[in-house]
């Protein structure tokens, strides 16, 4: 639990400094199925905490607990050292935890600026003349995306015309603009090609540099390693370890995720298919 690297976003990473979000040995069971057991990690401002695991490792349950969809059966969450409970996604959002789910919560047929402000539209005017302030919305959309280094051609174009990476980036920019302190990204790179994934990783770094705490869920160590400051490894609902950068190498992560012994066995099997 020691930070080996200086962190520009958080003032100091000393032992007495409370992290933005702390997960304290949370567990969750669904009926007789233990979905998550005794998992802990920390998310600090200006850092990226990567959550790695194969399918069925409990990554989804983990983010759903952070984003208020599920409540943990054991353990607790703390923000800035204060214990918190989220009864709904709305409460988590109000506390500053924004989740960018895989489906992105964007409407393909709607313009980028309409999507950007969906659910929290700025208004102008009074009484019956209160209206959606579209000029401000377009202007802010263009500016905010520009600040993230996303150069959109036209805020009026439907989101559906954007590429997968661009859509992810718009969703991230939206969460950042709407006051997120902790940004949870659910497999943002999994459906993307190599180049597109690179674009999204760059925006994750942007969000981090703006002082957000980022939780980056992925099953790809090659995506996690370049941006991650902390790595939480999950396997079959249990934590395999929670490492700061420098405590672990990429190969170790890969090997732990897949289960080194299992991989060796697999390699052995594949060598002689005909037997």
């Amino acid at each position, binding site marked *: 639990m020691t930070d080996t690297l200086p962190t520009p976003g958080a003032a100091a990473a000393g032992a007495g400094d409370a992290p933005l979000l702390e997960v304290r040995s949370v567990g969750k069971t669904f009926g007789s199925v233990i979905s998550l057991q005794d998992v802990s990690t920390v998310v600090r401002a200006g850092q990226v905490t990567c959550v790695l695991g194969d399918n069925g490792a409990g990554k989804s349950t983990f983010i759903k607990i952070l984003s208020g969809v599920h409540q943990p059966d054991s353990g607790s969450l703390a923000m800035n050292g204060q214990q918190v409970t989220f009864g709904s996604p709305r409460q988590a959002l109000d506390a500053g935890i924004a989740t960018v*789910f895989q489906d992105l919560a964007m409407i393909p047929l709607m313009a980028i600026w309409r999507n950007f402000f969906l659910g929290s*539209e700025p208004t102008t005017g009074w009484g019956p003349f209160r209206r959606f302030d579209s000029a401000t919305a377009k202007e802010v959309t263009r500016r905010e995306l520009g600040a993230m280094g996303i*150069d959109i051609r036209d805020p009026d*174009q439907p989101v559906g015309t954007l590429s997968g990476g661009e859509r992810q980036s718009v969703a991230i920019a939206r969460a950042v603009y709407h006051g997120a302190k902790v940004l949870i990204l659910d497999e943002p790179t999994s459906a993307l090609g*190599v180049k597109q994934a690179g674009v999204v990783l760059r925006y994750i770094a942007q969000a981090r540099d703006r002082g957000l705490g980022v939780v980056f869920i992925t099953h790809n160590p090659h995506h996690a390693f*370049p941006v991650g400051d902390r790595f939480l490894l999950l396997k079959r609902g249990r934590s395999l370890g929670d490492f700061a950068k420098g405590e672990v190498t990429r190969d170790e992560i890969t090997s732990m995720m897949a289960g080194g012994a299992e991989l060796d066995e697999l390699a052995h099997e594949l060598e002689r298919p005909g037997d």
Partner: protein
Amino acid sequence: MSTSTTTAAEPGAAPSPPPGPAGAGDERVARVGVLRKLLVKPELGALIGALVILVFFAAQSSTFRDISGVANWLDPASTIGIMAIAVALLMIGGHFDLSAGVMTGTTALTVGICTTQLDMTVWAAIAVSLAIALSIGFLNGFLVVRTKLPSFIITLGSFLMLQGLNLGLTKAFTGTVTVGGIDDYDGYDSARAVFASTVTIAGQQFRIAILWWVLFTVLASYVLLRTRFGNWVFATGGDEVASRNVGVPAARTTITLFMTTAAAAWFVGTVYAVRTTSVQANIGIGQELIYIVAAVIGGCLLTGGFGSAVGASLGALIFGMTQQGITYLGWDTDWFYFFLGAMLLLAVLTNQVVRRYAESARA
């Protein structure tokens, strides 16, 4: 932190493609043609269609292009249009209301029965009618939201129920299938001034419903494009789950839209009742499809999330012009339905292309 500022390289994942260049390497070219922008406007197809039909009939029939002819074909367009706007909003919100047509009958009959059978003033009857319409609309919306069944089925049910109620109750009250004599009751004259009078423009009398239609078109466009509610309508129709995830009150939006459709049916029903003073128990049946067709011609996608109020009004205008134009030319009116079917197919195919264009990634 400092070690990881160079990001986005894809080391090891695939050896052959080079890592992405540092800095946002944007090779995208800004080329948003005017034509492309116009193509994704939902009402464009309806506008072109309306112009073609206008020119076609105006060139062939002098009655059609005469100002009295204009007043004549604007009349059916107005009542269809008022309904088509509401139905279009509902369709953009992702739902259908098959009970919209029969509901115009229900509201008209309510006005008739409340006055002639229950001795109410005309305005009281109109108020009762509105209350009933809003309740039906609420119920439709509530059932759709709660059961998550397709609105097509739910409103098919309410359509059939209302059809039965219209006939059954009218017979029970009057012993016949008609309610007549609304004009004998208090408040008829002022109600007529609001719902069924005429306005003289350039020496020609136009029905006041035409002005209401224009007003509602403007109002609906404003709400759709310039208010938060309008944004929620597009979002709810585009992807309900996604919009709920970002805090859009999707259920409330849906119920409001069903109640809006019901309110429009109340308005049109009241226009019928006050205009004709006697109401047949079967009016409005079958009209619901015409409203939907007008909305689709106006660019509404059947799948929701896309469309316009102006388009629906243009769709209604196409209806009005064709209906009267065919009569003026002395053609067999059967051709009207053939023509409508053809327009509908054409519109759906066009919408399909537009949608595919709007949704296709241009990476």
